[in-house]
């Protein structure tokens, strides 16, 4: 299954993940 997020955020928002990275609930995805 998959979860897709689509959201509006300030342009200085940065993803803190990499393609293919394993991740768990609560772990950082991005921040401004």
């Amino acid at each position: 299954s998959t979860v897709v997020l689509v959201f509006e955020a300030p342009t200085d928002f940065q993803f803190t993940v990499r393609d293919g990275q394993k991740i768990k609930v609560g772990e950082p995805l991005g921040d401004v």
Partner: protein
Amino acid sequence: LVNAWSQTPTKWYPLPIAVGALLLVVIQYRKRVGQKEVYVDEDGHEVVKLKGPWAVHVMGALPLRNLSRVWGYMNSLELPVWFRPTGLKVYAWIFGCNIDEVEKDLKEYKSLGDFFYRKLKDGSRPVADVILVSPADGRVLHFGTIKGGRVEQIKGSTYSLDALLGIETRQSSRTEVFFESGDMAEADHKHFADINGIEYSLHELLGTQVHNTPANSGTSTPVVESAPAPLTGASELAGAVKHGERTDASVPQEGSASEVVAHDASVATQMGIRPTLERRRSLSTASVKPGNALYFCVIYLAPGDYHRFHSPTAWVVEKRRHFVGDLFSVSPWMAKRLENLFVLNERVALLGRWKYGFFGMVPVGATNVGSIKINFDKDLRTNVGSRRGHPLGTYTEAVYSAASPILDGQPLLKAQEMGGFCLG
């Protein structure tokens, strides 16, 4: 090297014509591959078709939804108590589940499906102090920005909103959900890519409904604006659920109206989200605010992963759109090969807002996990009945205004459990 480069004499040879012709053929072929194949119906709308190698078409011919339901039924069969610890340990070993963080004793899980939808022990998922956290265990397939219709990092093919949704958005005077129709033209180009350049239109994934489309047009699901439900019992809500009607599916909060309002006001302040009037304007006339951009992120949950999903941030879910669709596998292998996977599969688009503007979360089902559960939406049933009566792109919609009168939606805090995927 410098000497070789500068002193080697340059000799010119005539290319054989055949090689030149072959080169042109290759260039033409690559250009053609890069172009989007467009299938149109009798009205000229583009219809999204199953596109990809033969393996994809073979899968397309399989009764995936029925298979999924059979799989769900098999996994709901009760296991003998003596077998559960061993059997579930073998399952966990095969799929890489971490049994140490499972909430209950293995003996207590009646079936594999029960174990699949397991809860975790408190504290096993600490929450990071950032504005956006992962909603689920899994692997980040792809993420990026949606700017002017193109994803920054990856080329890809695009989907036409008109074709997929079968809605004449161009003549629509008003688009009810996100953008003014003027923005629609701009929104048409809001695309993002999932894997290696496969792009989707924002609206194809989340759906767009034209408010004034006549119900009998056959091209779209009629949507009826329902007044926010008073604080009533669930049965009254259940009665309101009909195909094609917008209904208020949220379960109203307990307590007197003033208590609810006070609670919501504090939640609103905590989440940094302004009260309803502001929201109403923001949703129906919203376009991306200056200084903001649209982002997307796709997370794939492998069979062994913990399959409950949580709120990635503090936001208010205002409505959900349940798209009845196929149940192709969403594994990275399939996502690379099946171009329009996420707009073909069964999915629930949860739409709302957070403090920076629009926020949407779309759990997408797959062959083995066709059932999507939303904790605060008791009426949602996915993967039931055939898909025949639901043309691609149409959806049933429900609003959650009863959950919080002030916020006009279901408020969620960061990392709060929202629901999950079940087998079958």
